[in-house]
């Protein structure tokens, strides 16, 4: 095995251990029975077919899609922290399209809903791209602000134009059957997972085997060298990378509406846009790794629900685990960078 791959796996193992230790320590300190809590977590997330197929895998779909996009964005040097808002843009437009396609053939209706979601996310991503390239506004700040704008608009939609017909609950009507992604019978796993896996392989091939994929990689590693040595237009790479990630976050929103909830409401996302950052980082932006880390985080969150139900441990404890994993990865990266070239800091 190549040394850098070995080092990456060591870092991964270290991060997962840190997460587990953080969990065990906080469980013990707060007086819960660590063994029964961990067993509930495992059974709820991965250990039973019910937990795996109906809780973990459906949750993994938006995380993988958003993570894949953020992987591309971060590679291309775009710090997109607005996936949450782009997810909502996609979910809002997908709902609106889906509700008006009742009589349509199912494959066409579903395709239109998903494309609508991706298109809406992409358009929403155009705003920070334009602000950055035209006015020099940092995308970190603009995407953060646009999250609030999107959430405000969704809040208006579900209490206004898209409110369900009886006007009691602040949510949209349920999508007609034609606009819903097919389920695997007897579970809550929907076809969006196949879409996510296909895209992961597609992006992997794109990054490894194509010229634009290499340009993306080069621009992310060293923008000035990419320009001087290869005449790679890093502004274009930045724009396309951010747009791709926004489109994928919008697609995630559409798939969530069409495959999981069938309705739009406030707090549709339990922070997918932010967890997606962790998903991409833990996988070191590798598309296939993002599938694995998306499954891991989805399983953790699904298992946390089971842990609260069966062992009385607050589900929110899983955030501590996620934070411990991310911070360990960051610290490990910083440490190994120093080992590579202590003199130059590279």
């Amino acid at each position, binding site marked *: 095995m190549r040394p850098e791959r070995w080092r990456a796996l060591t870092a991964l193992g270290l991060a997962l251990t840190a997460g587990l230790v953080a969990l065990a320590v906080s469980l013990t300190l707060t*007086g819960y029975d660590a063994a029964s809590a961990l067993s509930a977590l495992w059974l709820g997330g991965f250990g039973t077919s019910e937990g795996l197929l109906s809780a973990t895998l459906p949750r993994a779909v938006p995380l993988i899609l958003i993570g894949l996009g953020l992987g591309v964005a971060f590679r291309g040097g775009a710090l997109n922290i607005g996936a949450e808002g782009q997810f909502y843009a996609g979910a809002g437009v997908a709902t609106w399209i889906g509700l008006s396609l009742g009589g349509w053939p199912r494959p066409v209706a579903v395709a239109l809903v998903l494309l609508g979601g991706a298109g809406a996310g992409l358009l929403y991503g155009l705003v920070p791209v334009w*602000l950055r390239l035209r006015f020099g506004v*940092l995308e970190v*700040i603009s995407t953060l602000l646009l999250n609030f*704008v999107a959430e405000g608009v969704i809040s208006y939609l579900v209490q206004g134009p898209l409110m369900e017909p009886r006007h009691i609950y602040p949510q949209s009507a349920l999508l007609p059957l034609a606009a819903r992604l097919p389920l695997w019978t007897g579970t809550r796993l929907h076809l969006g997972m196949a879409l996510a896996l296909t895209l992961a392989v597609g992006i992997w091939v794109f990054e490894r085997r194509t010229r634009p994929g290499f340009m993306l990689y080069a621009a992310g590693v060293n923008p000035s060298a990419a320009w001087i040595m290869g005449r790679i237009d890093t502004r274009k790479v930045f724009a396309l990378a951010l747009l791709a990630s926004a489109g994928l976050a919008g697609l995630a929103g559409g798939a969530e509406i069409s495959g999981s909830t069938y309705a739009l409401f406030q707090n549709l996302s339990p922070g997918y846009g932010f967890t997606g950052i*962790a998903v991409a980082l833990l996988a070191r932006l590798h598309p296939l790794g993002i599938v694995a880390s998306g499954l891991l985080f989805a399983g953790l969150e699904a298992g946390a629900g089971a842990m609260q139900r069966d062992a009385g441990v607050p589900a929110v404890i899983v*955030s501590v685990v*996620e*934070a411990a994993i991310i911070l360990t990865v960051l610290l490990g990266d910083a440490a190994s960078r120093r080992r590579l070239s202590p003199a130059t800091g590279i």
Partner: protein
Amino acid sequence: METEITAFMASAVRVATPLLLAALGETVAERGGVINLGIEGAMLAGALGAAIGASAGGPWAGVAAAVVAGLVVGALFALVAVVAGAEQIIAGTATTLGCIGLTGVIYRHHYGPGGVGLTLPTFPATAIPGFSALPILGPLFRQSILTYAAFLLAPALWWLLWRTRWGLRLRAAGEAGLQARTRGVPVRRVRTEGVLLGAALAGLAGASLVLGQVGTFAERMTAGRGFIAIAIVALGGWNPLRVLPAALFFGAALALQYVLQAAVPAVPYQVVLILPYLLTLLVLTTAAGRAKAPADLGRRAASVEGD
């Protein structure tokens, strides 16, 4: 009508106080070139610290505990983002995530699984003699002590940033880290100090939310106020004196939504919620709004500091 306007202004100031404290803290951190998304977590930790401290030893103990909690969170973030030189945005997101988890677990452990009905000793409104008797404006001078502190902090921090040696070094680290380092500024150290001061203020912001505004603690009660503070810093052009009116503006928008919901149901109240963010984006597109951002903001520590 007059009483409605007065009540609205007073509530706007009350709502703006935690935002102002957090935004002032973030201004200091960002002036040093560090964008700290962990401020949301520091604020939440401060809120819980304030609750636990206040129920044990009164409001001032709450303030002290909140500042300590903010500092602990700030130290964790600074360790990863400044000392180790990791990506600031990701480190900040993770810090906030960890705080959401830890505060939730500690809160339930401390107050039981329900944890409802927690009533804390809060700061009473302190009237400023003379001013508080003014017509219309009077209620603005009957606020909690933390509100006055926040308003006085704005000029104090301006003085610290622009009139002291430490402030000069911090701004140099944020503006041109590499040059500052060649001139002998210990960039890592002043950045860490900026982050710590900012996080302490974020903790204080959490205290003002609990002890000056709400009077209780709830899980995830900061609800994005730390991120709003980051928007306020941008609207205020990274200058404490301008951050003050920017925070009041955001506070007024938040307070206005309730007035609008009751008084003019035809206008969707979300409009006033969205407006401040759109205005901030607009201000950033102007040359003046953009030029004020510290040049090395968010720049990986390793790339500006060398190693």
